[in-house]
């Protein structure tokens, strides 16, 4: 009823292969973009921008990165945090080595380094599969974390052992550092995330995306159809790590402002993995939904007791948050193991046939 595609005829393969072949979807995505680019900047408070939207977009990008690897190519990775760290440290080295270069270019370049390192740690994927591979990616996680601490060159020998984001300007706007306005940082993060999401959508609907999914669904059959497993998997590792690297760089440059190695610990890897799984493996939209759920829900939960006028100690709220998030994760996995993306499809299906049940 509300979501009816009947009567929308495609007259060319081009139209049929568009990203959003259905009119309602096009309207929906336009509305979301309108909200993101116009409504939020106009009405949102600084807290909403810095503590909800910016982290949400950064995490969504990282979730897209991991989704490429895990959701589309079927290679489970627990090293996301470290790959994000590589991006952050690379961006820091680049922008301090070339202070006059455009910082956004540096952030985008930093992903190249994490892509290279990701590809190296992807090599075992040729022989090792499934959960075994997941555990070996932990080697990347712990080894890289150790490098972030042990190689002072990476953080320019700072006494604090951390990377501190210097002030950088672009077109007269301060985009990084403490003086950068939340709104500026928000726009940068939004443009990068939306841009990469769009480009990835292109890759995923073409030959390369298909070859990843072939490997995921049945690697032996894929190989017998001419897909080179090593090349394809390494490419997935590289592309995934590139995206995660950029997300990691954005995390410190546009959100945290300074980062210790512990910012890129195994916990971050789990956080991102949760977003991907709850959002829905193999769905770009799901990455956004998962990121929203895992990041925004705990932030909101903190406000609940205050709104209800209850005086509960901060740590009790934290404990409750942990329990609720944990329980909800299990709950959603039980309800719909294919994540929010599938729930969204079911919802669309319901809207399509509404008011009839089927």
């Amino acid at each position: 009823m509300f979501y009816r595609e009947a009567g929308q005829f495609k007259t060319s393969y081009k139209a049929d292969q568009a990203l959003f072949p259905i009119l309602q979807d096009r309207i929906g995505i336009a509305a979301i973009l309108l909200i993101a680019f116009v409504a939020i900047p106009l009405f949102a408070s600084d807290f909403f921008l810095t503590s909800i939207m910016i982290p949400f977009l950064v995490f969504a990008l990282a979730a897209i990165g991991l989704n490429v690897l895990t959701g589309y190519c079927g290679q489970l990775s627990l090293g996301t945090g470290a790959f994000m760290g590589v991006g952050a440290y690379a961006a820091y080295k680049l922008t301090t080595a070339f202070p006059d270069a455009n910082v956004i270019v540096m952030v985008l370049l930093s992903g190249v380094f994490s892509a290279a390192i990701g590809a190296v740690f992807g090599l075992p994927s040729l022989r090792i599969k499934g959960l075994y591979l997941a555990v070996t990616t932990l080697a990347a996680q712990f080894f890289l974390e150790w490098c972030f601490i042990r190689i002072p060159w990476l953080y320019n020998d700072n006494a604090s052992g951390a990377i501190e984001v210097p002030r950088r300007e672009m077109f007269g706007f301060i985009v990084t550092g403490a003086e950068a306005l939340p709104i500026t940082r928000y726009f940068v993060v939004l443009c990068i995330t939306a841009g990469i999401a769009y480009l990835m959508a292109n890759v995923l609907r073409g030959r390369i995306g298909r070859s990843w999914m072939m490997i995921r669904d049945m690697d032996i059959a894929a190989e017998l159809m001419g897909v080179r497993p090593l090349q394809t998997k390494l490419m997935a590792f590289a592309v995934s790590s590139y995206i995660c690297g950029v997300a990691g760089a954005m995390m410190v440059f546009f959100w945290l402002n300074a980062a210790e190695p512990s910012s890129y610990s195994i916990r971050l890897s789990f956080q991102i993995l949760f977003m991907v799984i709850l959002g829905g493996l193999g769905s770009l939209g799901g990455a956004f939904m998962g990121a929203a759920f895992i990041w925004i829900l705990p932030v909101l939960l903190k406000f609940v007791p205050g709104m209800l006028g209850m005086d509960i100690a901060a740590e009790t709220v934290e404990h409750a948050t942990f329990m609720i998030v944990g329980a909800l994760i299990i709950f959603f996995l039980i309800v719909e193991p294919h994540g929010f993306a599938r729930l969204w499809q079911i919802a669309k299906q319901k809207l399509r046939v509404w008011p009839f049940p089927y």
Partner: protein
Amino acid sequence: MNAFVADRAPAPVEDAGERELLLRVDNVSLAFGGVKAITDISFDIRKGEIRAIIGPNGAGKTSMLNVINGFYHPQEGTITWQGKVRRKMKPYEAASQGIARTFQNVALFKGMTTLDNIMSGRSLKMHRNFFWQLLWRGPAEREEIAHRRKVEDIIDFLEIQAIRKTPVGRLPYGLQKRVELGRALAMEPELLLLDEPMAGMNLEEKEDMSRFIIDVNQEFGTTIALIEHDMGVVMDLSDRVVVLDYGKKIADGPPEEVQASQAVIDAYLGVSH
């Protein structure tokens, strides 16, 4: 006939035994640890024929197909492909030389739609690199659409238009087999290996599938090697039959000849060894 078929000239009809050699298997043996799957088997496949490989369960038929498309590497023996002795190769190399196959237990890409599954057969023919793919607009999109046309021809040929956008996991078994055939056809192979294409089908589906196989062979000129248990189908379809039992070749020749062979009768009726 549609554009896809028009590309291919039908093979001239001649006696199967005198056609040009496409593939020859010489004295091949394959073992897993101590278990011998194939022992000293030789036979050939000639261009344009339908070659059947039959035998009781566990005779080594699927292993033979796996050897042909490079998935298993025989410990002994040689394989000659289009006149050249083949070195040890990876499966994807076999694919790029024009060997396609279907599988005994349907091996479709379960998370993808029918369309995507058949498109995946075009992987080797598509060449736009990652950066064009990122952009999509322009060459990548044109390439995609060009291949989509070919795939649509196959969809028309197999009469599966209605399930184009359906994830293959939701299809009934018979249709899955058909999609799998479509995927193999999309590779435009020289040699098509079909591993029990009619297993688990009812009579009507078998008839459809037989028709597709004959059409593919006669109109596209594709050489086909197939494993099948239904003797009626084998006898009707194939030009020559090779019979395996316990990893050994026990007969080879035209269907009528094989059918009359005492060794084959013994193997199927279970004479003790």
